[in-house]
């Protein structure tokens, strides 16, 4: 049983324990499938492997939990979906993902005494989220707003060369808004920009 971590078209051999299974001009980067322990440590170990791989090559992360019987099955998966996977890889080439969550010190549900107050508080929050998201989206190659409890939860696909500029923009937005907390993490493998490639 092997777990598929990512797809790449870079032929550089990965360091153990990761192995590359090649087919149809693509490689699946795989590890032996461990017992499926869901501890933080296990999740971070997997993430570290992916990030080491990402440092040296462009890759398309595979959905967590994708386990196949053997290398033959991995080869078949590559061959069957070759064109979509290659297109997905082109989409994220040269870029990484940055995550942003924004907490507001105001309670999440507006404490409104009337429907009108509620609507106006909601529209203020939407406006505040837009003012944060738009300048960052302008730096990013692509962006997507994710579901979450926060004022804003979003993912940005950023050219590797533009990461510094993106981080500087986040710091500026934070400095201008002492009542908000901007949590920016990354660079991540481009997980959020790999999922639309559908089977």
């Amino acid at each position, binding site marked *: 049983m092997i777990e598929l971590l990512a797809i790449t078209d870079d032929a550089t051999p990965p360091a153990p324990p990761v192995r590359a299974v090649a087919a149809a001009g693509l490689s699946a980067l795989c590890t032996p499938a461990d017992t499926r322990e869901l501890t933080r440590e296990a*999740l971070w170990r997997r993430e570290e492997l992916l990030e080491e791989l990402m440092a040296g090559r462009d890759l*398309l992360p595979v959905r967590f939990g*994708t386990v196949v019987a053997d290398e033959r099955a991995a080869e078949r998966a590559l061959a069957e*979906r070759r064109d979509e996977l290659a297109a997905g890889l082109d989409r994220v080439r040269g870029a990484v993902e940055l995550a942003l969550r924004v907490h507001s010190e105001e309670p999440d549900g507006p404490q409104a005494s009337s429907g009108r107050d509620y609507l106006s508080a909601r529209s203020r929050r939407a406006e505040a989220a837009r003012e944060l998201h738009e300048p960052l989206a302008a730096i990013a190659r692509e962006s997507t707003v994710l579901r979450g409890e926060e004022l804003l939860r979003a993912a940005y696909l950023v050219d*590797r060369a533009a990461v510094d500029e993106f981080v500087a923009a986040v710091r500026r937005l934070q400095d201008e808004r002492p009542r908000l907390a901007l949590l920016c993490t990354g660079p991540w493998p481009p*997980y959020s920009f790999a999922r639309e490639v559908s089977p």
Partner: protein
Amino acid sequence: MTAAGRDVALVDLVDRLIGGGVVIAGDITLAVADVDLVYVSLRALVTSVATAEQEQILPRMGDALARDPL
């Protein structure tokens, strides 16, 4: 990454593991029921971290940028 940085970043990691990554057909061995259980556990993990984050003093950008940019 520091331990505190990892706590902050865990929400983002789990978000990505649940919803991100390319779905490959092929011979996926993990049963759908197993996947659902995995995702329920991950969601519980992310909820507990997010709640802790809200209850503590709000962490700031400077604490939270988890890794050096590439």
